[in-house]
């Protein structure tokens, strides 16, 4: 962006020369970013791969373990429980969050004052850290001293964090409460990008609000939906802080998702080798999912949706 603006100020002859020069400088501009990426992403990733074949308690010396960590983790039923829970939370979260944030995004994209005021309220959860959200919910849901007692609503006095199904449902709810605002923001931006002329044309053709939504808004939001879904799906692989504070993986193992399982093995049980195995599995699943979602967008996803406009 900034380079184009600077070009405009230049006289024509210099402009072409400068463009050529800047093009040759472009690869160099990526170097700092590349450096950080290698130092903070690629090298640690290789480190984890090496650790997955090692015995290490996080404190003492590192020793070779061969395939031992891999065979023990892959034959551990806990891994498949965690995997199942991770995908369960991922899918249900997507099903809950996408329609809500899509509708809220369309709603807040309007220019009316009251919509802007409501939008500010909707975005509040986005400002809170996951740990704070978890601690607040934990206090509100305490069966003896929480919201249920405060408001005198006995049906709220459930054993929210003590019954496996309730705890899982609750976690999906709190995740949605926290992340819907973020995705609403993405959809709001997407809707505002749709040219007004499309709606004007539809109105002349006699299409109502609902028809406009399904035939203009939704197709125009295709890539926004893909972006938002990628963030949701890949992000749900790394949900950690909220669940860690809210349930710690309990009751039993009923909310012990993969990222949490990795942490508990590595930092609570001092088994860095098996924890690294799970980290590698997480990376592979995350990459595969991201690639799959990119493919969903079709091959010409760089192409414009506004052809003929």
């Amino acid at each position, binding site marked *: 962006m900034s380079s184009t603006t600077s070009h405009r100020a230049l006289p024509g002859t210099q402009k072409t020369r400068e463009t050529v020069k800047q093009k040759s400088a472009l690869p160099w501009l990526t170097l700092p970013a590349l450096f950080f990426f290698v130092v903070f992403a690629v090298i640690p990733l290789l480190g984890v791969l090496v650790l997955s074949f090692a015995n290490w308690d996080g404190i003492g010396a590192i020793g070779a373990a061969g395939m031992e960590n891999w065979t023990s983790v892959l034959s551990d039923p806990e891994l498949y429980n965690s995997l199942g829970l991770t995908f369960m939370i991922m899918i249900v979260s997507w099903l809950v969050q996408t329609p809500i944030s899509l509708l809220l995004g369309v709603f807040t994209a309007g220019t009316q004052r009251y919509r802007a005021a409501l939008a500010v309220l909707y975005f509040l959860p986005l400002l809170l850290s996951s740990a704070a959200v978890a601690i607040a919910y934990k206090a509100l849901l305490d069966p003896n001293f929480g919201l249920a007692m405060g408001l005198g609503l006995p049906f709220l006095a459930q054993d929210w*964090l003590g019954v496996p199904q309730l705890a899982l449902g609750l976690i999906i709810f709190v995740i949605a409460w926290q992340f819907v605002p973020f995705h609403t923001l993405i959809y709001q931006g997407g809707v505002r990008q749709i040219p007004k002329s499309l709606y004007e044309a539809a109105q002349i053709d006699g299409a109502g609000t609902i028809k406009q939504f399904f035939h203009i808004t939704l197709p125009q939001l295709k890539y926004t939906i893909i972006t938002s879904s990628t963030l949701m799906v890949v992000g749900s692989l790394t949900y950690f802080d909220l669940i860690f504070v809210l349930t*710690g993986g*309990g009751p039993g*193992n009923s909310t012990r998702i993969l990222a949490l399982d990795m942490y508990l093995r590595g930092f609570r*049980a001092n088994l860095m080798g098996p924890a690294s195995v799970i980290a590698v599995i997480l990376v592979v699943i995350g990459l595969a999912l991201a690639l799959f979602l990119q493919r969903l967008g079709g091959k010409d996803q760089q192409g414009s949706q506004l052809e003929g406009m």
Partner: protein
Amino acid sequence: MKQFRSSRRSFLALAAVTPFAVMATSACGTSGPGGASGGGASMWFLTGEPNQTTMQKAVDAFGSANPDNKIAVTYFQNDAYKTKIKTAIGAGQAPTIIYGWGGGGLKTYADAGQVEDLTSWFESNPDLKNKFFPSSFGAATVDGKIYALPNQYVAPIVLFYNKDLFDKAGVQPPKTWEDLMSLVKTFNDMGVAPLSLGGQSRWTSMMWLEYLLDRIGGPEVFQAIFEGKPNAWMDPAVIETGTKIQELVSADGFIKGFSSITADSKADQALLFTGKAAMMLQGSWTYGAMKKDGQNFVQNGKLGFVNFPTIAGGKGDPKNGVGNPAQYMSISAKATDKEKESAKKFFKDGIMTDTVIDAYINSGSVPIVTGIEDKLASSPDKDFLNFVYALGKDAPSFQQSWDQALSPTAAEALLNNIDQLFLKSITPQQFAENMNATLGK
């Protein structure tokens, strides 16, 4: 134009240099975070009153008497600290003074050569060594060498009860397991929860197993587990312990929703002093907290306390106790000589002074120093303090908390399996088998 280019170049140069600058700065950190300026040592301690104030006062007093050996303290929340200290030690970023609970955790540090061997230092300071309960050195010792200074107070697990509720029901505190089971029925009929439990914290549930196993099979059963003897967890006493736990859960012994209650929020204590639950098995440290939060519940003598009930045909001595024999402080082997000297001076002159001892007694705890009988007897909390003192000093066996005594790997598996045992998602037999697989790990 020229200016534009040069500024771009300098930006690139800056961008290229920054990572190295960042690395250089972080490399400096290896000498230890919070390295007190002008010498002295760093220490991490736990948040939470009244101990945080007691420790801060001790550090301040020591600092003003020894300006060259000031101790810089940073405070962390209990559960977070346990993870943070392990990671910091592994990364060579530990503070000079490493606070902990001895046992299995200390053994991992000692095996990795991360903590100083204090044996010869204690030999040259016999007065200091003789000041503490001899039993407090057990969990500080690894392979015959002392790696930590015992300090603070002895914290046995005690069965607390609400005297008002017991008077109302016209019953006596339980002496046997049968008494306890009949009290469960009495209080459930009254609409009061028999037992308060912060089950989400898991180590709270563990306390029940510790006492039950001791009463049923005697201290030898856990000793064998601790030593990693083959099939030590498969002892019939372990299975009976698990069965008794599940009987108690099935009889609605614990308050409804106990799995949602945490001990960190002190909700389990609040249930007892607000009269929502009749009894609670918890550490003696909750006495001070209930005295502070309970609106004269403790001051008016409404808080009762007894030994854990006996079990018919059990092998354990009813006077046996479980809990924390003391808290411990080690010195990081990675600290500089100057920092180590400051830490040792603090251990000797700063940590268990008369002021600190009085502060612990005033908050309802029994410091682990000998010759304090008179002080305990003149305290307003003398009934409780003498009870704890007797448990800590005269118990034929005082078992350290299991999650501290075992290795971190086994402890995490233990807490996880206890949680499932209380949820009845595994049988006592499966519990024993799962734990048996962790022996030697």
